[in-house]
């Protein structure tokens, strides 16, 4: 339970940080903001990697699920960062 309260604390504080900085993003950049946060939400790849690492408590099924999860999360990361970069470079040009 202590662990849970710790995690909840971190969650709530991080939401406040998020609200503070994202409120400052101008409407012009809202589409790249969305695709950029899409990429960041690919962080779940971390969990997928740990599930597919073949340690002794994994099963065939859990490894399969983990590998599919890695593939999906990597799509998110790679496509998200690349397409955001593509868009932002268009804004940079004068």
């Amino acid at each position, binding site marked *: 339970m202590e662990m849970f309260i710790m995690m909840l604390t971190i969650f709530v504080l991080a939401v406040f*940080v998020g609200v503070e900085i994202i409120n400052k993003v101008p409407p012009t950049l809202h589409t790249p903001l969305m695709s950029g946060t899409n990429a*960041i939400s*690919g*962080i779940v790849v971390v969990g997928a990697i740990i599930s597919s690492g073949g340690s002794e408590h994994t099963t065939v099924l*859990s490894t399969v699920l983990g590998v599919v999860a890695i593939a999906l*999360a990597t799509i998110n990361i790679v496509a998200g960062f690349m397409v955001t970069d593509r868009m932002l470079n268009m804004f940079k040009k004068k």
Partner: protein
Amino acid sequence: MEILINFGYLIAAILFILGIKGMTTPKTAVRGNQMSAVGMLIAVVAALLDYNVVDYTWIIVGVLIGATLGAVLAKKIAMTDMPEMVAALNGVGGGASLLVAAANYLESQQLAEMGKFVPTYDWSIAVILSILIGAVTLTGSLVAVGKLKGKIGDAKNVGLFKAIVKLALLTLIVGAGYFAYVDPLHSDLLIVGMIVLCLILGVCLVMPIGGADMPVVVSLLNSYSGLAGASAGFVLGNNGLIITGSLVGASGIILTSIMCKAMNRSLTNVLFGGSMAASAGVSKSENDAFYDGKVKYSSADEVAMLLDNAQKVVFVPGYGLAVAQAQHATRELANMLEARGVDVKYAIHPVAGRMPGHMNVLLAEAEVPYDQLVEMDTINPEFSQTDVSIVLGANDVVNPAAAKDPQSPIYGMPILNVHNSKTVVVVKRGLSPGFAGIPNELLIRDNSLMVAGDAKKVLQDMIGALKDL
């Protein structure tokens, strides 16, 4: 090692925060995005160092598949299709979180058999939440993509979907209670059943939402995809996931509330109110009667003459501009006008297009400098000094009924006051109503001219006519 790994997650989280901070100006945004990417790399390396990772074969396979698909997608996608792309990526993220929760459940069974794991209530609840949010994000986003592509129309029986949603939620609560309090580790069938139920729930939550409200839905699903990641973080006890997921969740919620405000609707009304066109829309004959004989048609040549004498011109882009891929033609016409000393601006309504910032990206692609893109509140007082406003495929966001007709379904929605300009030129394919399903009073006003046709074609004709003058 454990300390080093957690330190890595912390660094990654800091880089994500700084990366988003970079997005506050277009100048620093590219670097911000790169910082986030570096943060992701650090997080992945930290995960690879985890003591649970003993074999890299399958990890490499997964990464290679994902990276190839992702890179191809990012290179090929047209800027006009960004809403579909973002919606699809939301779904993919939700799917990944769902699978991580399921895989963790299976592993926890093994660990419990070895005597290394005892299920707690908060673990059980986190697993259920992860499944719920992940599955809803996955199928909800797929439906949203279908609606954005126009393959799935507005639902007629909103009540049915609402009933299914209520029933599914009730069943879920009972199932979750049994799972958490009775037997968390021998409930394989229950878990599979709940996953299926949550997948159905996602479909039924998005189906009743009208096509006009897609900007809200895409933003909300963006938020869900972050929350799905955060709940996976609760399952795994990983702070990196929790921080990052909550950042994304906050971002989506803010965009959602901006979109709702720009339409003067509450989130509940958008989610459960059904499509505006279905409830308040007019029939075709009513629509025809509204416009009957009152619309003044004009031609590209006439508009070119108007533009020739204008000092200040404002372009008002909408979804029709994206459909016609007319952003480059718009830019070309604007360039010609600027060369003649005309003051040119672009008025951007917050819900123009199909997602937040959609118009800005399209115009940036056509190399329009971003300081010419003006937000609604700044441009509205300027319309009275504008000689010609050119409305390109926008409809409900320039309907004066929103400001003065309390009976109108869009009453109270902030609009661009184009009707205050000396002349308004509306480029539109026909007189069919917009998303709200109502006729546009703008078209029958004395200072309005309608040019019927595809936005790109009409703009090219105007460019040609202007050259001949």
